[in-house]
């Protein structure tokens, strides 16, 4: 087990991109269950360390601890990734909590065409498109390790529970519009009087 742990760490270290479970199975010649266990250990071991394990749908990847963001940035003489716009952060939140999710579902939640936000997020590598298993022509969107790097977290599991986060926004019973309200809206002096509605209609 210690050996597998070491092998996985070596592979993650030399890989230029996230590694999937399938790839790890192939190159370590071990079974999925053992690899998952080793990855779990690796992730918890590293939490306070300089190098952490990122765990996103596109795979596993080693990265610097986001607590050291400033120092690493200065060393690399790099800029931090640009901040997100309102529209993209909205789309990202929906994907983060509902992934994998289709464009249609995202648009149903937002009530607005989201093509350009999705494109912007894809271009920045914060999300990726995967085939929809239930629809040969459709796609689903999910977040990437690049997203975790940007947000400075190691997994979406680190995000607060959605239900708790939005606890103050409850879906209440929808009150029916009653006749009182309808009547209130009908002022005989207003133009709408041309619509002849009998008394019964309002009761």
């Amino acid at each position, binding site marked *: 087990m210690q050996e597998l742990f070491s092998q996985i760490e070596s592979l993650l*270290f*030399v*890989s*230029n991109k996230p590694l999937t479970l399938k790839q790890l199975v192939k190159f370590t010649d071990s079974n999925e269950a053992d690899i998952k266990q080793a990855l779990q250990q690796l992730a918890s071991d590293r939490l306070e360390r300089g190098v*952490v394990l*990122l765990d996103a749908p596109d795979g596993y990847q*080693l*990265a*610097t*601890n986001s607590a050291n*963001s400033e120092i*690493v*940035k200065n060393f*690399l003489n*790099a800029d*931090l990734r640009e*901040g*997100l716009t309102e529209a993209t*952060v*909205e789309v*990202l*939140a*929906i994907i*983060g*909590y509902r992934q994998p999710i289709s464009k249609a579902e995202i648009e149903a939640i*937002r*009530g*607005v*065409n989201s*093509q350009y936000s999705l494109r912007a997020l894809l271009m920045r590598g914060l999300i990726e498109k995967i085939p929809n298993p239930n629809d040969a022509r459709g796609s689903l969107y999910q977040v990437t*390790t690049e997203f975790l790097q*940007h*947000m*400075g977290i190691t997994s979406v599991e680190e995000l*607060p529970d*959605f239900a708790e*986060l*939005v606890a103050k*926004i409850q*879906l*209440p019973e*929808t*009150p029916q*519009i009653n006749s009182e*309200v*309808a009547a209130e*809206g*009908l002022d*005989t*002096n207003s*133009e709408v*009087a*041309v*619509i*002849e*509605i*009998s008394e*019964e*209609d*309002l009761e």
Partner: protein
Amino acid sequence: MTQIKIQQFEGPLDLLLSLIEQQQLDITQISLAHVTEQFLGYVKELEKIDATQIADYLGIAAKLLVIKSKAILPSLEVESLDEEPEEDLTEKLLRYKQFKEAAKYFKQLDARGLQSFTRTRVFSERINFWPDPAVTSGTLRTSIGAVLDSLKELDNLPKAKIKEAISIQEKIQTLQTKLSGQIETKMSDLIKNAKNKEEVIITFLALLELIKQRMFSVNQNELFTDITITQYTVSETEPQEAEPENNDII
């Protein structure tokens, strides 16, 4: 009147939410009916500056008008023509609000500026050459063709949206012409050939517009009976006093 800045909203639901919250209302059908006019005013402004967005807003505008109309005509059964029951607008709004809340949290994460970096492997051995034997110039030709196709699609997107908005307007005008040619029209006749719910709503909207313009009046004798649309005559229930001028008439 609260002035709304154009284009500060992430879509019609965002606009509706802020209209409701501005007035410190809860998200209910009644609140929606209450802010309908302001919503429509915004859409009118939006249409002038960005027609590509208008289709999304028109869809919600139609829903709002149905809610508002139901307050006046409780017997109105627009939704009965739905193929599938549609999610209630209040519920839709609340769900959107939940995700806005989640987005706020994401924004905070983003604003911390705490990011991770990965490493890039570099090679000590300089340029080695490992081509993929399967990739030929023909492969590249096919691949660039696919890229060009998707570029074309992207290019056509805004135009398609404008077309959609225009078609909604055209339907409204067609209907206007049709109604003007008849003395009396039954509501049921107008909507019986409707292909989808959208068309029914548009029919109803157009009707409201015509009533407003004093071109027609609407009569419903009993609850749940058909609505009859007739050319407007002054002698009906209209009070004789002068009404405030309506300058919106086209």
